[in-house]
């Protein structure tokens, strides 16, 4: 059923049944306009990233590089412990954060959506609390606590912080995903004598894959890009993550920005996220169509 809806040939749900040619052209033109506006900054940045350092900060600027140069990328790649180390750290932290978000948010979403719990709105509010606190402020007490239990300068410790930041959105999404599943499916499982745990693992989880994928995707993006906690909780060059490298490499004296290195760092930070997004998009779209979020 889902795949039929997915295929481009299937009649569109919300578009006009027989769209007049003019409307179709208009929609096409708007789409292309949107692509141009939204894509332009990234294209310009990509072009600037292959300029020479001097060309990248030329005033007035050029749209196109006058000469092709990879010096900006070389600079980022070679900085300090080397890009590979930072990428490795970021990937490990992100992996732990994703696992933690899924392991904590999925049951929570299940509990909040499928059980008539007294006071669950309060519980939901408590779980949303982390997004309401200026997180810069709790990093200091958290750091001092972590230092006492040896979590400072560990990937696990940083992943915990990233999980904190991502958990509210994850719980919110998983709750919606579980709520969207029709009651009939659950009733059938109850009749078959499934326990709540079996219902969760055998019936619900396969149906909430899109929600899980979304949680994983956003956990990855945010962990990959998070800067301040990474800097405060990690103490050594060899345990730093990519954003710290990118901030250090493009900063000059007195806040001067190395524009060339900035552009290279933007492109470098986009690539993994874009790759993950494109790979997951398949599950994502099919999932959205089956009603992941309502």
């Amino acid at each position, binding site marked *: 059923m889902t795949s039929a809806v997915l295929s481009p040939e299937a009649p569109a749900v919300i578009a006009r049944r027989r769209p007049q040619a003019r409307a179709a052209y208009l929609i096409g033109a708007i789409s292309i306009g949107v692509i141009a506006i939204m894509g332009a900054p990234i294209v310009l940045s990509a072009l600037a990233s292959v300029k020479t350092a001097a060309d990248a900060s030329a005033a007035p600027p050029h749209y196109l590089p006058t000469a092709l140069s990879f010096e900006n990328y070389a600079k980022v790649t070679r900085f300090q412990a080397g890009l590979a180390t930072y990428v490795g750290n970021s990937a490990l932290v992100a992996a732990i954060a994703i696992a933690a978000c899924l392991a904590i948010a999925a049951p929570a979403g299940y509990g909040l959506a499928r059980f008539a719990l007294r006071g669950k709105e309060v519980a939901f509010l408590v779980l949303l609390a982390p997004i309401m606190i200026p997180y810069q402020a709790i990093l200091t007490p958290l750091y*001092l606590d972590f230092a006492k239990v040896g979590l400072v300068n560990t990937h696990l410790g940083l992943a915990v912080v990233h999980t904190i930041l991502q958990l509210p959105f994850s719980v919110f999404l998983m709750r919606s995903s579980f709520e969207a599943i029709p009651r009939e499916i659950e009733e059938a499982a109850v009749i078959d004598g499934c326990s709540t745990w079996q219902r969760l693992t055998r019936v619900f989880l396969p149906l909430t894959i899109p929600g899980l994928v979304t949680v994983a995707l956003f956990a990855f993006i945010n962990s990959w890009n998070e800067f301040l906690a990474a800097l405060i909780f990690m103490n050594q060059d060899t345990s730093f993550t990519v954003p710290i490298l990118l901030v250090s490499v493009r900063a000059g*004296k007195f806040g*001067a920005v190395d524009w060339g290195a900035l552009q290279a760092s933007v492109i470098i930070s986009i690539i993994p996220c874009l790759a993950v997004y494109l790979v997951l998009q398949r599950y994502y779209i099919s999932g959205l169509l089956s009603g992941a979020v309502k």
Partner: protein
Amino acid sequence: MTTRTTCGALAALLITSSVFTTAACADSMTMWVRASGTNAAAHLVDLWNSTHSDKIELTTIPDNQMVTKLATGVQAGEVPDLVSFDLIYMPDFMKAGFLTDLTADLKANPNFASVAEAYVDIATYEGKIYGAGFTPDVSILIWNKDLFKKAGLDPDKPPRTIGEIHEDAKKVHALGADTYGFYFSGSCPGCNIFTTSPMMVAAGSKILPANGSDDALTGDGVKQVLETFREMWTEGLVPKSAQADNGANFTALFKSAKIGIQGCGGFLISDLKHDVPDMNFGVTFLPGVKEGHVSAFVGGDVVAIPVGSKHVPLAKAFIAWELTDEAQLEGLAKNNILPSRPALADNKYFAADPRIVTTAKALGVGYVPWVYHFADMVNSDSSPWINMLQRAIFDGDVDGAITEARDKMKAIAGE
């Protein structure tokens, strides 16, 4: 292709060297350095690592996070063995008890006696010494000789007073609407304490108060400099974008050869030589109102040992080493970085470029304010210092700006 090969080779080198390190070394120390000081520090650390069996691992911390990082680190007992940071935070850190007392070691060190006085002053608290000059930087006046020549000025004769800066700037700006006489980053407090305050100091003023009962912004120098800047601003000798520049374009316009004169740091010399090799430019001391009066802001990093360091004797050995002729010349001067001992300014590496010699000598005439809360008084985006500059230069209310800033600075100093 070449890039990739280089990277591969570099990676291989890193791997071999780290394997080698673990196999051969007795101990390894960690060192934090702020991002601005990384390049310079890396030269010294590389030299140390290649000549010593105990290695140092360098970790770069973004500039504006260093204080937070060190403060929380000390409180949690998670500190590096050595730290290199903006010297201006020295008084705050010494008072807070973050740093190890180095008095006995440094006083016994014959090289310490010739370290620039500014570095000794800033690292002294209640008679004890807590750090040493490490990777210096100092402010200077830089002028574009090509533009001077085109404007009919003598390219080898820099302005020697702020009045002359003004006159020369007019002539350079006359070359065309797109060429400007003078530049300063109007929304960058740090840039201006570095390049504008020495002009005031050279004109006889004192800028910052050390405590609540101390004087701030004394003398006429402050007013004279602000009035000159105001005139240059209203006459259009400074590009309009300067007002909003928070430091991001501190040096960009000069590099684009659109600026005749500007205050800057010695670091710009090697940047310019690398980025715009064809440009002819000169370097001189920042002047005051009268000819012969000059000053500079001594900046850059100091090196210190945080309380809680696990390798104190070794860290002390490193500090003693970095003051030796070998480290100062082969580690710093060879890479176009100033030695913290001004007497070493005339060396074989600088001989080829008198501009660097001038910069190195500026260390000897420079000042550094010994104050607490420097960040609050100066570096913060809402500091009295930057408010004064903006109100005086862009609004024209010079007297009101000075009075307001004086009161606020004293209030902060009294906290």
